[in-house]
């Protein structure tokens, strides 16, 4: 078919025009692409480079090694041991079910843990290791290692976990660590990222919690290159962290062990304080518990057993428990009056067995009264009326101030959980808290450490040390941090009249050395180590007039919860005091019968630095003491055995 040349010419012109137009559009779009490329690769390159690096580089934390805890002699109280766990990399295992079944033939696998592992496996990429069993014994690990060729993808891994070789002995002092909980994280304003590492351990209670910052150390970090699915391709660099600081305590672990054993199953607390430095040589709360149970997570049954025990093993009675100090407070009342110059040591008060205070009778513990008593006699026999009289003369505010100077009613700064301030009440306090006027009767009660008055066993030991030295002794628990000694708790002189203090000490000496003293039965007869002390028996109930008329019920006939607390405070040697000891036995009955013998035994153990010779005891007691020593040794030995195993 022939075409008209003009027509051909026209179509060709149209085509050329349009072809150039299309070419122009294409050129514009290519230009647009080039502009876009320039914008992204030249102008925004830095931002995109940063994003690419963020994609590629992953910061991984290296958990720091927790600082260890030693006693004053360098004996280990809390340390890290390798903890073995069995992990499985599903990718390398191939047939996971078969491998797990084979592994189950070699070691016991907890079905609960397995179930958790399977859930984790489904969620995470196959190259990430999954823990199948935690805290596996060395024997199991060796079995797995030997059979490694038959168990593809299974590897033993080593981590660190905390152990407390002294078990029950220092549970309340050292406390324990545990896995970081959501609650722990919520308590912190800006939790360190290291806390989010799975299975990372944090101090929960006691020193472990209070010195967490020192013990934890600083996490290191490594930068790794990861691919899109999170697999680590290589390590780029690493920054080592700082291990936690090692803490040396003032505690003498062997003495602590003895004290713990001596307290036996009683619900009791005992404190041994070094008078010169304020060092806490032993600070025992009984009964105790094994902190190792808590490290991995305690079973419900074990935990319930601890919480439902009426002796409250979890409570640290030495600093957390507060008790009416009873007659052990009488030194404070006496010192308040002496320092005010209202009485002299030889001035006497007549005790008819009671004191009439605003038409109410305040009884002395001895119905018949003590007759005329001076300072020494009143303390020795623990006459109540003498102190009622002093207190009414000097007034509560002076007594309260004196209590504060002796360390009662003030919070001592110790790295332990729930350190109680106790209470040394005054007029302002009662007005503020109870919105009531202070009554004369309140003063009488306070004079003998009853009523509102509350003190912890640790505070009583501090009070005793301050009386013994005349210095403001402050308790100290941490002796050194990473080998650097902490300041001593020796304290400045209290600024009290030295003669008054001497009179007070002499009166305390009489308590446990004079034939008529309330603690004469618990005296030390070694002349080098003579002990001064004071008994206390604090009521936890009111004795009604009717009961008093019918004859006060004997403690032994009361249910345990209503019996009196038994207290004893002491220092020794009398001439050159080294240790102050306080003992509180909850509902133990009388201070002289229940608390003083314990305090004496503890004091001797501390003074001799081990088992004291029998001739430090009064002759008639020696047989009984020897039997007790033998029994305690028998009891201590099995508890020592697990330590040997840990050390091996």
């Amino acid at each position, binding site marked *: 078919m022939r075409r008209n040349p003009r027509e051909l010419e026209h179509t060709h012109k149209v085509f050329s025009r349009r072809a150039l137009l299309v070419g122009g559009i294409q050129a514009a*779009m290519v230009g647009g692409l080039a502009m876009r490329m320039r914008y992204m*690769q030249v102008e925004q390159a830095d931002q995109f*480079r940063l994003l690419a690096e963020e994609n*590629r580089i992953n910061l991984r934390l290296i958990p720091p090694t927790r600082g260890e805890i030693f006693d004053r002699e360098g004996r280990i109280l809390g340390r890290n041991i390798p903890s073995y766990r069995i992990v499985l990399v599903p990718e390398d295992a191939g047939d996971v079910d078969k491998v797990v079944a084979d592994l189950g033939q070699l070691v016991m696998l907890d079905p609960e843990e397995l179930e958790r592992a399977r859930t984790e496996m489904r969620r995470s990429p196959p190259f990430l290791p999954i823990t199948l069993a935690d805290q596996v014994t060395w024997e199991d690990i060796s079995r797995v290692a030997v059979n490694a060729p038959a168990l593809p993808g299974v590897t033993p891994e080593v981590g660190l976990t905390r152990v407390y070789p002294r078990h029950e002995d220092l549970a309340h002092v050292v406390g324990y660590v545990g896995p970081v909980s959501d609650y722990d994280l919520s308590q912190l304003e800006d939790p360190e990222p290291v806390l989010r590492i799975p299975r990372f351990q944090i101090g929960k209670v006691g020193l472990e919690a209070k010195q967490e910052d020192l013990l934890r150390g600083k996490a290191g970090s490594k930068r790794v290159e990861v691919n899109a699915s999170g697999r680590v*391709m290589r390590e780029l660099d690493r920054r080592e962290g700082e291990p936690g600081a090692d803490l040396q305590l003032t505690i003498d672990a062997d003495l602590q062990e003895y004290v713990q054993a001596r307290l036996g199953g009683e619900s009791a607390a005992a404190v041994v304080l070094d008078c010169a430095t304020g060092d806490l040589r032993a600070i025992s709360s009984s009964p105790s518990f094994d902190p190792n149970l808590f490290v991995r997570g305690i079973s419900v049954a074990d935990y319930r057993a601890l919480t439902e025990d009426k002796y409250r093993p979890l409570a640290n009675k030495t600093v957390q428990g507060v008790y009416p100090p009873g007659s052990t407070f009488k030194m404070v009342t006496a010192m308040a009056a002496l320092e005010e110059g209202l009485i002299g040591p030889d001035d006497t008060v007549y005790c008819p067995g009671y004191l009439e205070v605003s038409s109410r009778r305040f009884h002395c513990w001895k119905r018949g009264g003590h007759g005329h008593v001076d300072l020494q006699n009143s303390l020795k026999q623990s006459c109540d009326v003498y102190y009622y009289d002093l207190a009414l003369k000097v007034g509560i505010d002076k007594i309260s101030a004196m209590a504060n100077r002796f360390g009662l009613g003030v919070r001592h700064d110790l790295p332990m959980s729930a350190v109680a301030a106790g209470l040394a009440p005054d007029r302002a306090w009662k007005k503020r808290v109870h919105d009531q006027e202070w009554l004369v009767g309140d003063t009488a009660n306070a004079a003998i450490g009853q009523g509102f008055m509350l003190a912890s066993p640790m505070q009583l030991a501090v009070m005793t040390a301050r009386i013994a030295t005349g210095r403001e002794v402050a308790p100290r628990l941490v002796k050194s941090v990473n080998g650097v000694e902490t300041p001593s708790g020796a304290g400045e002189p209290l600024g009290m009249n030295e003669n008054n203090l001497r009179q007070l000490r002499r009166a305390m000496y009489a308590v446990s050395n004079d034939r008529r003293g309330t603690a004469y039965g618990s005296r030390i007869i070694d002349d080098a180590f003579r002990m001064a002390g004071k008994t206390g028996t604090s009521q936890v109930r009111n004795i009604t007039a009717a009961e008093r008329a019918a004859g006060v019920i004997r403690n032994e006939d009361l249910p345990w919860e209503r019996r009196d607390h038994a207290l004893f405070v002491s220092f020794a040697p009398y001439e050159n005091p080294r240790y102050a000891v306080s003992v509180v036995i909850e509902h133990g009955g009388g201070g002289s019968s229940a608390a003083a013998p314990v305090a004496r035994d503890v004091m001797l153990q501390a003074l001799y630095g081990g088992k004291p010779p029998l001739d430090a005891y009064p002759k008639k007691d020696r047989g009984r003491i020897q039997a007790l020593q033998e029994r305690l040794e028998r009891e201590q030995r099995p508890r020592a055995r697990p330590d040997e195993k840990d050390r091996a």
Partner: protein
Amino acid sequence: MSYLEYNVKATPSGLRKVLYMNWPLTLLLISTACVGFLMLYSVAGGSFSPWAEPQMKRFVLGLAVMGVVAMVPIWFWRNMAVVAYGLSILLLVAVEFVGATGMGAQRWIDLGFMRLQPSELMKITLVMLLAAYYDWLPAPRTSRPFWVLVPVVMILFPTFLVLRQPDLGTAILLMTAGGGLMFLAGVHWVYFAAVIAAGVGLVSAVFQSRGTDWQLLKNYQYRRIDTFLDPSSDPLGAGYHITQSKIALGSGGWSGRGFMQGTQSRLNFLPEKHTDFIFTTLAEEFGFIGGMSLLILYALILVFCLSTALATRDRFSALVTLGISINFFLYFAVNMSMVMGLAPVVGVPLPMVSYGGSAMLVLLAAFGIVHSAHIHRPR
């Protein structure tokens, strides 16, 4: 002008034809293919397997096919246009029944030695048919409604079949290339204005229909559109690809991170790094300079096609050459826009560079026709 009017004696014959091939175009194609080999070697972590080596073999095969097609006189291809178009339609229908499913769409027929994507073939045969149609149609009728409707049906029928697979990307490419050819053929611009207006209406209808019973697109297609409009809305899901692609491209900077040093592709942050996203790897490792180099190679290919089309007095030759060039342009423009975040992810490979046999073979065969038009142009 019909082939009967050719001065056949003036056209080269025998082996002399080889000298008259469009050699600059051939060299440009070889260069772009080499860029492809280099990148396939890189994304395989410095290895010829699994991608670079098969790609090279296919390219050699493709060059041979191109040469053979180039030697055949252009009027033969014009006469074959209807047959080729019919065959493509048959294959598109066949893929409905025997096609393998990949990524939620039926797209290829497994021939054993290669996977044939009929839709790739369709892009070229549609252009051939339209070029032949306008070569046949007397010029005055070009803009008559009936004679406009005929090519519209020719375009829409395969488009409909491709949409059924469903492959929205190829469908849009088919329509655009077909429309572009009609425009080049001289159809009155009013029709295009009307189609564009209708297109705008259709787009709004597509969005309006979302979530109703008469929803026009599949949910994944809507999600792709959403992701395109705001990739950051779903950075770990559907937006992941585009976000990572942009990071890789942008982080290349001026001169790139170095051959085989692109972290985004080496550490698998890039999806489909050997096929649709291969340009990203190029831009990451060779930077703006590398990306621009490839873009310039592509642009030069377009220029040589345009010059071939303008130089020939044969209407079929001119139309088919520019039709193929438009197709080629659409390939790389859509692919690059996609990886730069300018277009939704529609699954269009980068021509001559992305790993994939049938696309490259079909493309090289198509350039064979361009060569043929060049060799056999009326003198």
